[in-house]
């Protein structure tokens, strides 16, 4: 296997595991590079970073929040809104490690070819956002934060293993045996939130249909396969908000028909108008 075939995959794993390690070290040895967890952290002991969706839920409960955490949420929102798009899901979120493993095993076991199809809508995540806010308002507790496998897995790494890992195992099995990319691609409301935040972000995957040989390897690996509707048809950027910028399609493409781009997106955007 060529390095160019796993470049972004490796980079993503380094990013995901590296961040988990920094969080772990922040608790275990008091490293002040990155402390807290994915709900809210402190970078170098100074810069706050907070999960905008958690903040929304806390607002829904009617609580008043400190300035620190609001600044943190603003920083995160601006970062993904201007640059990263939905990159949180594939470059930061630890659950992605689990669901990618499930998707990989699914391909190896040919489960897609064998199993009976269970269809669920990819829009469930957006309904989940609304429901999470309603439930937060009803119950007076940030609703997704008490069931979120993202923070549960994150806290299990940082603060010690607990039985919350059962939920992570359940998500692995769900993705493996029930719905392909079931959690990240259909249900997770945090993914939905970052999709919306990243609507106008700059970092995009660009397709060159001249170079494409229609091998469809990209569609095999893409966790949000509907965003690749232009493959072999049009030379445009992937503008659908559900693209996580994981770069796996770029990795597997042997024809240089896919690449990350920033400027081309702006140009492309102007042309389409």
């Amino acid at each position, binding site marked *: 296997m060529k390095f160019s075939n796993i470049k972004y995959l490796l980079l993503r794993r380094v990013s995901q595991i590296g961040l988990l390690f920094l969080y772990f070290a922040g608790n275990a040895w008091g490293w002040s590079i990155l402390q807290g967890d994915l709900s809210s952290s402190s970078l170098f002991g100074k810069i706050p970073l907070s999960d905008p969706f958690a903040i929304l839920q806390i607002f829904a409960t009617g609580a008043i929040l400190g300035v620190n955490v609001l600044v943190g949420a603003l920083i995160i929102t601006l970062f993904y809104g201007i640059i990263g798009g939905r990159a949180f899901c594939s470059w930061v979120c630890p659950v992605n490690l689990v669901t990618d493993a499930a998707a990989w095993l699914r391909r190896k076991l040919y489960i897609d070819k064998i199993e009976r199809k269970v269809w669920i809508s990819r829009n469930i995540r957006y309904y989940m956002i609304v429901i999470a806010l309603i439930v937060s308002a009803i119950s007076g507790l940030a609703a997704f934060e008490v069931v979120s496998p993202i923070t549960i897995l994150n806290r299990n790494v940082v603060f010690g293993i607990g*039985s*919350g890992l059962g939920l992570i195992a359940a998500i692995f099995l769900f993705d493996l045996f029930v719905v392909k990319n079931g959690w990240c691609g259909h249900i997770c409301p945090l993914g939905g939130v970052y999709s919306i935040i990243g609507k106008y972000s700059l970092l995009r995957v660009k397709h060159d249909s001249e170079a494409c040989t229609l091998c469809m390897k990209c569609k095999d690996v893409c966790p949000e396969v509907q965003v690749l509707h232009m493959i072999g048809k049009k030379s445009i950027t992937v503008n659908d908000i559900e693209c996580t910028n994981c770069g796996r399609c770029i990795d597997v493409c042997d024809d240089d028909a896919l690449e990350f781009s920033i400027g081309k997106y702006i140009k492309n955007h102007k042309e389409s108008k």
Partner: protein
Amino acid sequence: MGQKNKKVEISSRRRFFTNIAHNVGLGAMGTLLWAGYTTKAKSSPLTLRPPAALEEDDFLKTCIKCGLCAEACVNRPQNRDKEGNQLPGTLKMAKAEDSVTIGTPFFTPRDVPCFMCDDIPCVPVCPTGALDITKVTNPKTNELDIRMMDMGVAIVDVHSCIAFWGLQCDACYRACPLLDEAIKLEYNRNSRTGKHAFLEPVVNPDVCTGCGLCEKACVTEKPAIFVLPRDVAQGKAGDHYVKGWDKKDQQRVGDRKEQDIKTKNERSSKNPTDYLNSGVEY
């Protein structure tokens, strides 16, 4: 027979409304299930929170479950044994198996009590204000004041406390960081022997911060002195009862007048002279 095979025509309007009903129904189902779980997950009445935590209801709303308080607690410089090895922290982040709302900080004094650090490292790091620094800041000096901490209150089970048996033990009294203030020893005559004294530990709930050092120090198999959240451990006399001999106590009730106090029950619906003269009939 013909009727059986007849195909039902589904108009686009019917499809539209059925789809709406379908989505609303599924949404309502999810909301109900989720709200049921969340409401249940909220209920952890016996939980001891970090110092300066808001009232439990507000705390649960505001806490973002980031763990910065727990990290500040475990990584404080003085949290090391003589060899320099790190000791476990007081604050733990609730796991799914703890009977505490998941991801929120709490402590178990019998395992690791709160040592009431002078700089209270767990509080200033809170990004949301769920740990409210003003609750432990003395308004006069504008400095952190460990005496203002309020995590709970220590309760003595006088039946299992061996000091109340007449055995000599003052472990909790000695362990208390507010020595001779939060816990006092009351001397009583031991009439069983006729020549010994009981040295009974008595907690002053107005001073006790609920740090749990007494619970940790207690020598009995299961601690005879233990910390409970204040609203669980303490009763409330209410406004009906005022210590007439204590001028300050009148302030607690304020300027309430007798005619403002309305207790409604079968008896109060009658004039006292009526029911006192006519015997008990409520």
